[in-house]
């Protein structure tokens, strides 16, 4: 069943991926090198080269199989779906040997023992245990063990991040009181930082294993055998020591006995909608709040911009024009990053919601200003001239004659922007906002029901944007009394 589904999405594959690997003489392993030290990361001295203990482990495994290893970059929290699509042969990137993972995909025997670590600012009170963090803002990596453990512990003000570098940066920026993350990452990033400290002992140990597609039984067996050999001949130990992530607990690797794996069961979120729909709707509320506030900001700022351009003189006009061009010529993603991570460096610290509203609003303001300008320019010159000839000032002429007529013309493009904003707002998940699309992603990650959840999510988006479109039609018709 699963094989059929994944076979459609991915490229055509041989009966077992192991054969395919040997045929092409290359194994493709999926990992995320963004903020991936010490697992996989660009060599600081030679950024085009990837290093990290998993990188070297992949090379060692490839050598055992008699092939070369090639890294396929993939966002970390999307590694499992990408594996199932057939983007690469297996996942080798801090994938935990959890019961959930074992149900969804094939998991190899472990190659590393990890533990969780609390990191805080050095000058802050130390939090030795999760219980000490109740009610405090705590950052975790999306879909990580840390997220699962902290969610289970409950009572924390959890913030979900796409990468550990971002969460540690927010810890330093005082948006967070602590970050819970895998010990190796803590050792690599937080330990050398004089402003941060590892708080309390490591806890909740577990194993990392390699993830393969469930049907790739032969590949799994080959990988198990290779890992076992690499552990026994101390290759794994040598690699780990090189990256400073070897400790006494790693001895548990040798005593590992695979437990019986529970039979896989599929969840239909559509059948269990009373459980999942409210979660999605809660995300939708955030999406609506965000879009409405950001659009309000955009509509007003856009008006200010266009008035600066139409009524203003030299520098003001130039400023408004420059703003529009710069905003339209740079990606929204970068603008959001600059507002959320860049502004704290100059002492302006916004929470994620405010940063998201500001980022989306200021971005769309440029587009609204252009909409208004197009509207104003399509009003015949005679309207402005007749107003001036009557003794109205330019501002009065705009306010009473030109803008009211332009308003009707700009309703359709502004509504289109508003509807686009609903959908674009999902991008703010990169600055830890959990809105509708993010909720969808998180639920899909844990249930693997992309289709059922996808249908529900799409239905919610549609239910939100269609009334907006109807309202715009109605408004446009209401304002059209001057038809000739």
């Amino acid at each position, binding site marked *: 069943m699963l094989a059929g589904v994944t076979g459609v999405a991915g490229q055509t594959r041989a009966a077992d991926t192991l054969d395919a690997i040997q045929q092409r003489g290359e194994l493709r392993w999926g990992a995320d090198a963004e903020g991936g030290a010490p697992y996989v990361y660009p060599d600081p001295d030679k950024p085009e080269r990837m290093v990290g203990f998993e990188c070297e482990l992949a090379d060692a495994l490839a050598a055992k199989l008699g092939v070369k290893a090639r890294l396929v970059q993939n966002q970390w929290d999307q590694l499992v779906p990408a594996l199932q699509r057939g983007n690469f042969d297996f996942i080798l990137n801090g994938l935990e040997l959890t019961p959930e993972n074992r149900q969804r995909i094939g998991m190899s025997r472990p190659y590393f023992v990890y533990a969780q670590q609390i990191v805080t600012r050095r000058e802050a009170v130390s939090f030795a245990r999760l219980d000490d963090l109740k009610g405090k803002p705590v950052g975790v990596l999306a879909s990580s063990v840390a997220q699962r453990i902290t969610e289970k512990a409950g009572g924390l003000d959890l913030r979900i991040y796409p990468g550990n570098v971002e969460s540690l940066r927010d810890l330093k920026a005082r948006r967070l009181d602590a970050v819970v993350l895998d010990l190796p990452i803590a050792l690599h990033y937080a330990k050398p930082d004089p402003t941060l400290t590892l708080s309390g002992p490591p806890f909740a140990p577990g194993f990392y294993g390699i993830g393969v597609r469930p049907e790739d039984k032969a590949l799994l067996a080959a990988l198990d055998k290779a890992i076992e050999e690499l552990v026994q001949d101390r290759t794994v130990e040598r690699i780990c020591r090189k990256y400073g992530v070897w400790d006494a607990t790693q001895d548990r690797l040798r005593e590992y006995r695979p437990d019986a794996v529970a039979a896989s069961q599929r969840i239909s979120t559509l059948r269990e909608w009373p459980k999942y729909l409210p979660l999605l709707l809660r995300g939708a509320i955030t999406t609506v709040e965000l879009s409405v506030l950001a659009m309000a900001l955009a509509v007003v700022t856009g008006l200010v911009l266009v008035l600066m351009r139409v009524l203003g003189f030299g520098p003001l006009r130039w400023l408004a024009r420059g703003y529009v061009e710069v905003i339209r010529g740079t990606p929204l993603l970068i603008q959001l990053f600059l507002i959320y991570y860049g502004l704290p460096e100059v002492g302006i610290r916004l929470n994620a919601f405010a940063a998201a509203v500001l980022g989306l609003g200021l971005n769309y303001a440029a587009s609204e200003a252009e909409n208004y300008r197009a509207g104003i320019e399509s009003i015949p010159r005679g309207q402005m001239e007749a107003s001036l000839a009557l003794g109205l000032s330019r501002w009065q002429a705009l306010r009473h004659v030109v803008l009211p*007529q332009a308003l009707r013309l700009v309703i359709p493009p502004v509504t289109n922007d508003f509807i686009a904003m609903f959908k674009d707002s999902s991008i703010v998940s990169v600055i830890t906002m959990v809105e509708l699309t993010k909720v969808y992603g998180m639920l899909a990650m844990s249930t693997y029901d992309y289709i059922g959840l996808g249908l529900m999510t799409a239905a919610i988006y549609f239910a939100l944007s269609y009334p907006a479109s109807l309202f715009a039609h109605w408004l446009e018709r209401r304002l059209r009394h001057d038809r000739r």
Partner: protein
Amino acid sequence: MIVVESLVKSYNQTRVLHGVDHAQSRGETVVLIGPSGCGKSTFLRCLNQLEVADAGRITIGGITVEGGRPPGTKEERELQRRLRMCAGMVFQSFNLFPHLTVVQNIALAPAQVKGVSPRDSEALARELLAKVGLEDKAAAYPGQLSGGQQQRVAIARALAMKPEVMLFDEPTSALDPELRDEVLRVLRRLTEEGMTMIVVTHEMQFARDMADRVVFFDSGRVAEAGPPEQIFEHPQLERTREFLSKVAKR
């Protein structure tokens, strides 16, 4: 009432007005005629400051504005506005505000510029509508009116600012012949009431009947001027004669 001295205006490099002089006393109706492109519209637009003249001086109702550059200071802008309020303008294409009713079109400027109360400005609007014979169209939108009706509303709108002078730029040219008379009737009435007017038109009958003086414009200059009998019956210049015979054939 109106004194224009050596008015010069160029667009880009082309000179359109070559030092126009013009003087007109209160209550006088002047009809401006001349071939297409000779600068009649430009002259009117300079008079009420829709265009800023390059050189020369314009005095209307005691307010003097010098040409040269757009108003820079607040005082200069205020002066420009006062001059505009002295000179009502009626355009060939009406330029009514399509999103406002007829009454709102007329009441807007008095309310906004002079601060007349809503009640008074509406009363004024209805009074002026009655004067142009459209009291029953008060609540209509411009799009619901015929061209002739729209132009009469435009005249009422200009009159609402109680200007000293009315400037008409081909007020009937955009209208079907059968609609022109209703507009010309309004103009006649204004002339009879003693309004000071400059009318650019090709309606020679109107010029003969109502003009105190006809000015023939050619290539951005006043070529010939005089009472209608003189211009129409005994034109001094060959160009004037040519122009009149062309217009007569149409």
